[in-house]
């Protein structure tokens, strides 16, 4: 068909032109009032003074940020030293999230590729299998993992019975358990965007590479991965960001020694031991880290589109 007039510069006057603001207004109001404004108030709270039974006193203070980065001794009058406790919790969150992302990528990419290259009929089934856990309650999935890897849980029982090990592997309340939980929680988030990218991949590119004497490995590294990279990056973001702020996996699987940012923040709002300004400050720091990741992502997307 010739034609393609509609694709000319400037689309037609749209059906509901002029109603845009009215139609978008409810979304703006709800998200604006109940998310954007709260984040603003949270920022304000992070600069307030803590009230001992939870809540705040309306007095400007840098105490929350100071407490995060500096140790001033028991009575707060020692010369400031770097406070490592919270920085280490953040650092642990970053590498745990990073490792979970890497592991998910290593298993998620082959899975996404395999599914996308199936014939249409079986592809639907595979895709459905990956999609279902994506929507299953995260709490239940974390509980399942906890049940599975307990010292006398099914995994250890089975390994003992088959004689692979002679005494139970202690996984629960270790960083490995947290890692398993994160990896397990967010694995589908890696597969789906890569799948979407591979589905659009033009296999003639592989044929052209093979025709030009590329080996399978060279085709994978020089052609396929660069072409589907936007999907890979999207998948990595979707695993890394929620892992970073994860609460359930460290809380249920990691115990007290494997705190991550999520558990640290949570603790500040529970009961009398809480410290709201400090919790708000930690949440702001987490949010800033996520925003930095997202800005890098947006930049890389723009570069892709510009190229």
């Amino acid at each position, binding site marked *: 068909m010739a034609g393609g007039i509609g694709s000319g510069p400037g689309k*037609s006057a749209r059906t509901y032109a002029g109603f845009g603001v009215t*139609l*978008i207004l*409810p979304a703006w109001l709800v998200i604006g009032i109940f998310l954007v404004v709260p984040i603003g108030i949270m920022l304000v709270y992070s600069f307030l003074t803590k009230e001992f039974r939870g809540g705040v006193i309306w007095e400007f203070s840098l105490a929350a940020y100071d407490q995060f980065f500096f140790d001033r001794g028991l009575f707060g009058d020692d010369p400031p030293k770097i406070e490592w406790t919270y920085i280490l919790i953040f650092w642990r969150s970053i590498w745990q999230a990073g490792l979970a992302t890497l592991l998910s990528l290593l298993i998620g990419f082959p899975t996404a590729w395999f599914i996308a*290259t199936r014939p249409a009929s079986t592809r639907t089934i595979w895709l459905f299998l990956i999609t279902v856990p994506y929507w299953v309650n995260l709490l239940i999935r974390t*509980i*399942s993992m906890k*049940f599975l890897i307990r010292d006398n849980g099914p995994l250890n029982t089975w390994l003992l019975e088959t004689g692979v090990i002679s005494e139970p592997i202690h996984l629960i309340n270790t960083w490995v358990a947290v890692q398993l939980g994160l990896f397990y929680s967010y694995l589908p988030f890696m597969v789906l965007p890569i799948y979407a990218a591979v589905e659009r991949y033009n*296999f003639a590119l592989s044929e052209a590479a093979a025709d030009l004497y590329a080996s399978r490995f060279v085709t994978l590294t020089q052609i396929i991965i660069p072409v589907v990279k936007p999907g890979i990056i999207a998948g990595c973001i979707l695993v890394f960001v929620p892992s970073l702020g994860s609460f359930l996996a460290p809380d249920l699987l990691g115990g007290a020694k494997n705190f991550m940012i999520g558990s640290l923040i949570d603790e500040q709002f529970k009961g009398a031991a809480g410290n709201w300004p400090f*919790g708000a400050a930690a949440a702001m720091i987490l949010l800033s880290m996520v925003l930095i990741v997202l800005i890098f992502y947006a930049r890389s997307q723009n570069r892709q589109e510009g190229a």
Partner: protein
Amino acid sequence: MMAKKPDLRRFPGFLPLTVLCVFLLYAPLIIVAVYSFNDSPSITLWGGVSLRWYEDVFWGPESDKFKQAAINSFVIAVAAASTATVIATMAATAMLRAGSFRGKGASFALINLPLMVPEIVTAVATLIFFSAIGFTTGILTILIAHIVFCIPFAYLPIAARMEGIEDVYEQAAQDLYATRWEAFRLILLPLMTPGILSGFLLAFIISLDDFIITNFVKGAGVETLPTAIFGAVKQGIKPNIMAISTLLLAVSILFVTLSYFSGRMGQNRK
């Protein structure tokens, strides 16, 4: 016979990795589901098949707590998903059918903001917000928080569906003397139905599943299923938890399946 041509789509090891991936995703869930039928009061030893823990969930000592939590969860999920679906449908119409308007660029970011902000941050911000304005936490605060994060989940399938419907149908309707409202009601809305249904179902599941935000804004005494389960698990995993988890798992699978097929149904008709 000629030698089989090498298939360039195939990489050695990808099939086993895929099988491993699916296995990893399902193994814990299946094990919990299996153990929920365990007759033994110990969660470790296998004592034969029975439904006693399901009986316990529905009629046991904790059943009232779980029933109330389930009712709360369901009411909140229906209300949050419905509201979010209406808002998301309007927003999608604005984004895809209303040409350009002030703030359109920012709107897309705003709609997706709840997806980008870590849940724990949203939870903290929402709690602080309600506390700052002196609003008592309870069912209503849970509902409001759920509507916010349900909007992008409802928006995605709705917008995807609307993008797939050419605006020539609405133009044809207008050409045939339909007003804009008639073009929306008689043409766009019916064509959108699979996407709207899909959006509603996903928003419903997301609301039903939410733990972190709910846990922060629920206030004293109000529980949803996830917070009730979490509270119980803190005292150790008991068999009745596995039964209730399995039930919730079944609900999730049911809804995803419905949503999946409503989306595909729409595609087929196009």
